């Protein structure tokens, strides 16, 4: 049977169980879009190609499946670069399909031609330029395999127009795309060693990272931590892997981490890091990081091992087999938690938690932290929260108290303003029955505001919560603390009326300007079917605390005026 390149492409996508594409048509992908009209596949038409990648990324983060987007050549392709780099930094499995000019024209500066495989070489896990229809099916399958295997990441497949238009007689080879996964050679031996270290420790601590969520290992991770009753801190990306409502929960560590978490890391004598890469925002000054601890590092990526923090025991493995082996071995050997030995340590942690909980001072203005607390309360902590980047992102991380994995969608590595709204679109498409909220700042929301059009178009019930302080808040905070209060170019007071803007898109808009209006607006927003934009006029010069100045040890936290509340 004859098949066009477009048909081969959709065959491969179907074999990968792709149900949704996020995309935007253009000259070089006209044939794919034409074929799409005859295929059973959902397409979400975004308003900008950057939004397509972030949406595919949000879909992947919320569902644990590979997100897919489709864009045209040239500007369509270059518009995806920020989204690709964002997915790369956070290890999110995304497949980006780009159109390309016909192979005969490649290299001649044709209309809408750009060397997108060259441009994205350093921000994709891998990329392909398909030059022959005979390679198309295998390449697309391989792209998915690479995106989700090992440490996941984005893969780009560049599709020249003539390859897509050409016709093949050949049945696409059902190439068994070989799984490249390799088990850790001496997992049992290493896990025995880890257990020994863990049981010898007097002040043990676990750091959980995004790798546990990506590896779908939250359940087994929770069971392990609870079995040995070891306190847990989390990175930004690990939030939700371990429930914030659990008594062992010690908080998020890092620049804006909890006092208890940063103190615990600095004082522990054994640190077991699971699925983390030791980002500088988490470790702060590396030489002072966990300086009293022996370190066990479990991660699938050998590059992460000994890259930032020197480990005493490295286990290069997916989280699930490593944690399962730890579990099994401890069962077989009848190991029990070293209760007596770590009793004093647990009391110390409780004391730190009580001494300095996350807090803020109330006044006659809306405090942004209060909005997040109320949001948590009204959604019973069960919403999917996407964020943009900045102060609101940190407040969401601190005050939403995540209990579930795949529920906090945030740009941790690249720090991409404009991520949250399209990511929320992807999450809502993946999880139509969940409450999906984009927590945004007034600066960030304007970076991909056009995606309100997408939400309206598909009636996606995404709720946008804008913590509007009329500043680029995090920039202003740094300027206040480190640049002598010179607020250079961080004033955003020339802002649109977000309620009217929402209404212009056909979306309901609500506003709160006083603390007593917060709950009512949130409730009305959450109860209204369909999309809603909620504009909260918050305290304009509120700071995120605690704060560790970059380059200083985690113990050197500034608290601003928060201490009074504790």
């Amino acid at each position, binding site marked *: 049977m004859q098949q066009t390149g477009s048909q081969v492409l959709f065959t491969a996508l179907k074999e990968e169980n792709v149900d949704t594409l996020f995309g935007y048509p253009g000259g070089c992908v006209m044939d794919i879009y034409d074929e799409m009209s005859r295929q059973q596949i959902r397409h979400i038409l975004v308003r900008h190609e950057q939004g397509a990648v972030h949406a595919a990324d949000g879909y992947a983060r919320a569902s644990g499946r590979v997100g897919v987007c489709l864009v045209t050549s040239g500007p369509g392709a270059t518009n995806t670069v920020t989204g690709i780099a964002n997915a790369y930094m956070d290890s999110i499995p995304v497949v980006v399909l780009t159109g390309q000019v016909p192979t005969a024209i490649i290299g001649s500066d044709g209309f809408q031609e750009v060397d997108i*495989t*060259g441009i994205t*070489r*350093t921000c994709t*896990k*891998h990329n392909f*330029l398909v030059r022959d229809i005979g390679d198309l099916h295998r390449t697309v399958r391989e792209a998915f395999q*690479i995106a989700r295997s090992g440490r996941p990441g984005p893969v780009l497949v560049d599709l020249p127009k003539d390859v897509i238009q050409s016709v093949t007689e050949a049945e696409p080879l059902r190439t068994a795309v070989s799984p490249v996964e390799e088990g850790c050679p001496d997992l049992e031996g290493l896990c025995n060693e880890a257990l020994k270290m863990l049981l010898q420790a007097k002040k043990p601590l676990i750091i959980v990272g995004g790798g546990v969520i990506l590896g779908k290992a939250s359940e087994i991770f929770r069971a392990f931590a609870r079995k040995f009753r070891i306190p847990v801190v989390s990175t930004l990306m690990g939030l939700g892997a371990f429930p914030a409502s659990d008594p062992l929960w010690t908080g998020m560590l890092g620049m804006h981490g909890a006092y208890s978490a940063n103190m615990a890391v600095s004082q522990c004598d054994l640190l077991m890091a699971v699925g983390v890469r030791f980002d500088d925002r988490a470790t702060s000054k590396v030489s002072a990081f966990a300086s009293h601890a022996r370190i066990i590092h479990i991660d699938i*990526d*050998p*590059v992460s*091992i*000994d*890259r930032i923090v020197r480990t005493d025991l490295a286990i290069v493995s997916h989280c699930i087999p490593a944690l399962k082996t730890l579990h099994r071995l401890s069962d077989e050997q009848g190991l029990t938690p070293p209760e007596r030995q770590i009793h004093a340590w647990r009391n110390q942690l409780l004391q730190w938690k009580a001494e300095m909980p996350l807090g803020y001072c109330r006044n006659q203005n809306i405090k942004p932290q209060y909005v997040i607390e109320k949001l948590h309360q009204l959604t019973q902590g069960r919403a999917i929260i996407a964020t943009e980047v900045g102060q609101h992102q940190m407040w969401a991380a601190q005050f939403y108290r995540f209990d579930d994995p795949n529920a906090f969608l945030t740009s941790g590595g690249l720090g991409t303003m404009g991520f949250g709204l399209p990511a929320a679109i992807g999450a809502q498409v993946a999880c139509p029955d969940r409450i999906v909220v984009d927590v945004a700042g007034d600066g960030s929301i304007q970076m991909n505001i056009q995606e309100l059009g997408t939400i309206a178009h598909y009636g996606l019930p995404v709720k946008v919560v804008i913590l509007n302080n009329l500043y680029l808040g995090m920039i202003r905070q740094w300027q206040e603390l480190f640049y002598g209060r010179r607020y250079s170019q961080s004033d955003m007071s020339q802002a649109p009326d977000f309620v009217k803007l929402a209404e212009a898109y056909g979306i309901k808009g609500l506003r709160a300007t006083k603390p007593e209006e917060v709950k009512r607006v949130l409730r009305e927003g959450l109860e209204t079917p369909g999309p809603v934009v909620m504009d909260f006029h918050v305290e304009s010069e509120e700071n995120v605390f605690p704060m560790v100045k970059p380059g200083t040890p985690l113990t050197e936290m500034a608290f601003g005026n928060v201490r009074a509340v504790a």
Partner: protein
Amino acid sequence: MPVQFKERAISVVVNNRPDVLARIAGTFSARGFNIESISANITRNPAVTKIIITTLTTPETITKVIKQLNRLVDVLEARRLRRPQAVCREMIIARVPLTKERQAAIQELIDTRGGKTVSIEPGSAVLEFTGDREDLEEILTRLESLGMEDFSRTGVIALERSKS
């Protein structure tokens, strides 16, 4: 502790694809390392290329580079080649003017350093030498004194002395 910057050799076996060299070069440049020398050619299997790269690094950084190279999809194997377990060779071809006075000196250099005459034209000859870096540095000094006009030098190739 003094930082031990030394020229170290890596063997990288890769799929013979058009962009693989760019990916490898990118792995070095993205981390701020310089490639000192590179040589690449196909293996018994023409779909597979072996690349020998030398770079000035510390033992710690070379371990990191190798991990990163192994992460590339088209890299089948990247590993360190350590001396003295591995032999390293480079080759130069050099054009020297042929004059009566220098003929004996040229012949002596060829004889003592295992050189070859590749081409003789009226007035000039192209000579070929192989050896390790130190050998070639010395030979080049001698060739300079013979009025060498130009030369071309390969990257390092290397191989372990025995199966390990």
